[in-house]
C-alpha cells in the first residue's frame, strides 16, 4: 500500500473557517461538505486507493477557481484538481486534509474557428464532446483515450492522454495550442493561442502531462483536424506473439503508417470474443487490428499492401473489412476489451508501460513467465505501433494477499519496460500508482531537478503533493529548502 503524507493538523482544525471562506466565493451548491456526498469523490478509476477529502468545491468560472486558490493558499490547504475521475493511476485521489477542486461545471465550448482550425473549450468538457461538436463540419479532435465518453479535456491535458490513433495523430501535447491556467497564488494566466509557435520557454509543453503539480487548467485551446474521407480496418491473426511483432515491424518499415495498429494476445482475444462476438479467431496466439484512412481506392491500395506483408508471416487468417459495419465489428472487441476482462475476473490492474517495439516478443515472453510465477493471469492489449503495453493483471481485490501480489507483479512488468529501454507510463500518468517506481527511471539528481520546477510553481507544495514524486525524497527536499 502506498504511503500518503500526514494530514496537516492545523488545516483539519480550521475546517469550519476554510469552508466558510469557500462559501463566500461559491454558490451554496458549489461547496460539498456532507460526509455522504464527499464519499463520491474519495477515489477515481484506481479504486484500490481512497481518501475522503476535507471538502469538494465545484466552481463555474475561472475567476471562482482563482478565488478558491487564494483561499487555499492563505490557509495552507492542499488542493486536488479533478475532472471526471477516470484516472487509472490515481491522479484524482484526494487527501483527508485536501480540497477537491472539481472542474466538471466548467463545461462549455467557448469558441470554434474552422478557418484557423481550433476549438476553445473549458476544462470540464468531455473529450468526445469536442469531436461531436465539430464533426458536422468535417473536423475532429484527435487524441481518443478509451474513456473518451467520460474523461474531460482538463484531465487529458494534465495526464497528456493518448489513445488508439496517436501513432498517426500524436498525443494530447501534440494537439494543443493554448491553456488558461490558475496558479497556486490565484493568478489567471493565458499560455499560447491560435498562433503556432510561441517564443520563450514552452510553458504549454511543460504544463501538459504535469499531473496537476504546477497549476490548475481551466480552459484549453485544441487543434482540430479535418477528418479523412473514410477509414477501414482489417484483422490479422498469427501463430505466435513473435510473428505478430515481426509483422508490425515490417509494416512500419515498409513506409506505411496506419492510423491504428492494435495488438491482442491470446487471453485478451478470448475475453474480448466472449464479450463482443466480434468474430476473432480463437486459435490465434496474437491478433492485429490495423486501420487505414483515405478514399475508398486509397484504403484498398493500403490494405492490399498491408495484407501482402501479413501474408509473408504465415497468418492463420486475414480479414479485410468491406464496409463500415464490418470495420465497426472488428473494433467492437477491442473497444470493449476492459469491460470484457472485467467479466472474466473480479478485478484487474491495467498497466501502461512502453517498450521499444523490437523487444516485444521478448517482453511478452517474460510477462508470461512472471504470470506463471505469480499464479496470476494476464491479458495483453496494446498499441503495437508505438510499443505502449497495457497488460491487464487479473486478481480478486477481496483477497488482500492477492491484491498485493498483483501490485508486485505490475511493478515488475514496469521495471522490465524500463530495463529494455522503455518507460513506466505511456499515457496513464504516474499518479500515486507508479510514484514510488520513479527512481527506477530517474536518478535522484533528475528527480530533484523536477521537484525544484514544481517548487518554482508551487512553493508550499499545495497542489497534488502526494503524487508523481516519491514521498520520502519529497519531504527531504522540503527540509533542505
Amino acid at each position: 500500500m502506498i504511503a500518503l503524507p500526514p494530514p496537516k493538523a492545523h488545516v483539519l482544525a480550521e475546517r469550519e473557517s476554510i469552508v466558510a471562506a469557500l462559501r463566500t466565493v461559491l454558490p451554496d451548491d458549489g461547496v460539498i461538505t456532507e460526509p455522504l456526498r464527499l464519499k463520491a469523490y474519495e477515489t477515481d478509476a484506481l479504486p484500490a486507493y481512497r481518501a475522503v477529502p476535507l471538502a469538494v468545491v465545484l466552481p463555474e468560472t475561472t475567476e471562482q477557481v482563482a478565488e478558491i486558490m487564494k483561499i487555499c493558499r492563505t490557509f495552507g490547504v492542499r488542493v486536488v484538481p479533478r475532472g471526471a475521475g477516470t484516472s487509472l493511476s490515481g491522479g484524482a485521489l484526494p487527501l483527508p486534509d485536501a480540497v477537491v477542486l472539481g472542474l466538471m461545471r466548467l463545461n462549455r465550448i467557448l469558441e470554434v474557428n474552422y478557418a484557423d482550425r481550433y476549438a476553445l473549450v473549458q476544462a470540464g468538457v468531455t473529450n468526445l464532446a469536442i469531436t461531436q461538436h465539430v464533426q458536422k463540419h468535417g473536423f475532429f479532435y484527435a487524441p481518443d483515450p478509451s474513456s473518451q465518453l467520460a474523461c474531460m479535456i482538463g484531465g487529458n491535458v494534465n495526464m497528456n492522454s493518448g489513445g488508439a490513433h496517436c501513432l498517426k495523430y500524436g498525443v494530447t501535447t501534440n494537439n494543443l495550442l493554448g491553456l488558461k491556467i490558475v496558479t497556486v497564488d490565484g493568478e489567471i494566466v493565458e499560455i499560447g493561442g491560435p498562433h503556432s509557435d510561441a517564443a520563450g520557454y514552452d510553458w504549454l509543453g511543460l504544463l501538459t502531462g504535469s499531473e496537476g503539480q504546477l497549476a490548475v487548467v481551466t480552459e484549453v485551446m485544441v487543434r482540430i483536424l479535418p477528418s479523412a474521407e473514410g477509414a477501414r480496418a482489417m484483422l490479422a491473426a498469427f501463430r505466435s506473439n513473435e510473428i505478430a511483432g515481426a509483422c508490425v515491424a515490417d509494416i512500419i518499415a515498409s513506409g506505411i503508417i496506419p492510423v491504428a495498429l492494435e495488438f491482442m494476445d491470446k487471453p485478451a482475444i478470448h475475453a474480448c470474443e466472449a464479450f463482443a462476438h466480434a468474430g476473432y479467431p480463437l486459435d490465434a496466439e496474437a491478433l492485429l487490428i490495423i486501420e487505414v484512412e483515405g478514399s475508398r481506392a486509397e484504403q484498398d491500395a493500403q490494405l492490399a499492401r498491408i495484407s501482402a506483408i501479413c501474408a509473408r508471416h504465415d497468418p492463420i487468417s486475414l480479414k479485410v473489412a468491406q464496409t463500415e459495419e464490418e470495420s465497426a465489428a472488428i473494433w467492437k472487441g477491442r473497444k470493449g476489451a476492459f469491460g470484457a476482462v472485467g467479466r472474466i475476473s473480479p478485478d484487474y490492474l491495467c498497466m501502461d508501460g512502453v517498450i521499444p517495439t523490437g523487444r516485444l516478443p521478448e517482453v511478452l515472453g517474460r510477462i508470461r513467465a512472471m504470470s506463471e510465477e505469480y499464479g496470476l493471469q494476464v491479458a495483453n492489449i496494446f498499441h503495437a505501433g508505438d510499443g505502449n503495453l497495457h497488460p491487464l493483471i487479473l486478481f480478486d481485490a477481496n483477497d488482500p494477499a492477492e491484491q498485493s501480489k498483483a501490485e508486485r507483479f505490475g511493478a515488475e512488468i514496469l521495471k522490465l519496460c524500463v530495463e529494455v529501454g522503455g518507460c513506466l507510463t505511456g499515457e496513464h500518468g504516474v499518479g500515486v500508482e507508479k510514484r514510488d517506481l520513479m527512481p527506477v527511471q530517474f536518478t535522484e539528481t533528475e528527480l530533484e531537478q523536477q521537484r525544484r520546477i514544481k517548487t518554482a510553481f508551487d512553493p508550499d507544495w499545495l497542489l497534488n503533493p502526494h503524487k508523481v514524486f516519491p514521498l520520502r525524497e519529497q519531504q527531504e527536499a522540503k527540509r533542505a529548502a
Partner: protein
Amino acid sequence: MSLAVPASEEELAALLRAAYEAGEPLLVEGNGTKRTMLRPVQAARTLSTRGLSGIRLYAPQELVISAEAGTPFAEIEAKVAEKGQQIIAEPPDLSFLLGSDGPQTLGGVVATNLSGPRRVTAGAMRDHVLGLRAVNGMGEIFHSGGRVLKNVTGLDLCKLLTGSHGTLGVISEVTLKVLPAAERWGTLLLPKLASEQAVAALAEGLGSPYGVSAAAWLPKEAAAHVPALAWLESSAALLRIENFADSVVYRLGKLRERLAAFGHAELLDDAASRAAWRAIRDALPLAARPEEAVWRVSVRPSAGPRVLRLASAAGARGFLDWGGGLIWLAGPATPELHAAITSAVKATGGHWLLMRAPDALRVSVDVIPPEPPTLARLTSAVKSVFDPKGILNPGRMFAGV
C-alpha cells in the same frame, strides 16, 4: 575569446561544474550558425558541442533516431533518408539567410525549435523530441523522455529545453521521432491571388480531407526569387500533397475541384515541388540583403495577410507560410520598423522573433515578446532551477535572464 570543445558528456559536465564554481558565463552553441538570432550573449568564453558527434541509435522500424548534439543535422537527414524516412518537422537550413558557414547541428536545431513548412500539419521540432540528455548550469547530467514513442513519466523537460536557446542546459544527446518519407510530392499552385484570398484558399485546403501537408503564399516579388517559380510572373498560393504516387494525383485533382472558386490552378510535379518548398523552407524568397534585419512572426493564420500588409507599409517585405500563420519579414534594421512590426503582431496576439540584426538593434529592442509578470517570474524561477548562477547564454532571450 576562448573556445572549449568537450569531447564527451563527462567532459562537458566537468567543464560546466568548473564554470559554475567560477561563476563564468558561457556562450553555448554548436557550430554557431544561428548566433545572429535573438540577443547577443556577453561571455568571454564559448562552449561548443561540436565535439559530441555521432549517431548512437537508428531503429527505422521503431521510428527513432538518437544522436549526439554536435552531429551535423544533414548527417541525420541523410541517415534516415537511406531507409526512406524523414525528419518530421522539416527544419530549415538558414545558413544562407543568416550568412553563416559550417553545418548546423542537431543540438542547434532542437535548442532553437526551428520547423519548416510541414509544421502547420505535422507539428514542430518540439513535438518530435522523444528524449534528450543534457547538462545543467551546475554541471549535473540529466535526461528526460527516452527512446520510445509515448512517455508521460515525470515532467516533460524535452519540451522545456527545446526552444530554450541553450539557457537551461547544454543538450548532449537527442532522440527524435521520424516517419516514412512520402513516395511523391505534388503542389497545387493558385496564381494571381491577393493575400486575403490566398489565405482563404489555403484554409480551405488545410481544412479539406485531402491531407495538405504545407500551405504558403508568396507575393509576386518573393515568387520571383524562387527558381522553380521563375516562369510564373505572379503571386503564388501553394498547397502541397505528400503521399503515394496514385494518391498525389487523386488528391491534387480533388483539391483543384474544391478550390475551383479561386480560379485557374497550376500543378507542380515532384521535382518542382521539392525545389520550391525547399526555397520556402529556407526563407530564400525573402532575398534578404546582408545589412537588413529578418523577423519570423507567428500569428493565427487568418491574421497573416493583415500583419504582412502593415509590415510592408512600414517598409518590410515578406511572405506567408503555415497557411498564413508564419510570416517571414526582411527590411531595414531600424527600431522604427521593429516597432511597427511588433505593434502589428501584438494586435493579433501572436509572437515575433528577431532572427538577424546588427547588435545595436538586438540589445535595444525586445527580440521576442516580453512575458506578462507571472510568466516572467516563472521564467526567472525556472532558469534558476537549471542555472542558478546564470552562466548559460545569459541575456540570450531576455535582458537580465
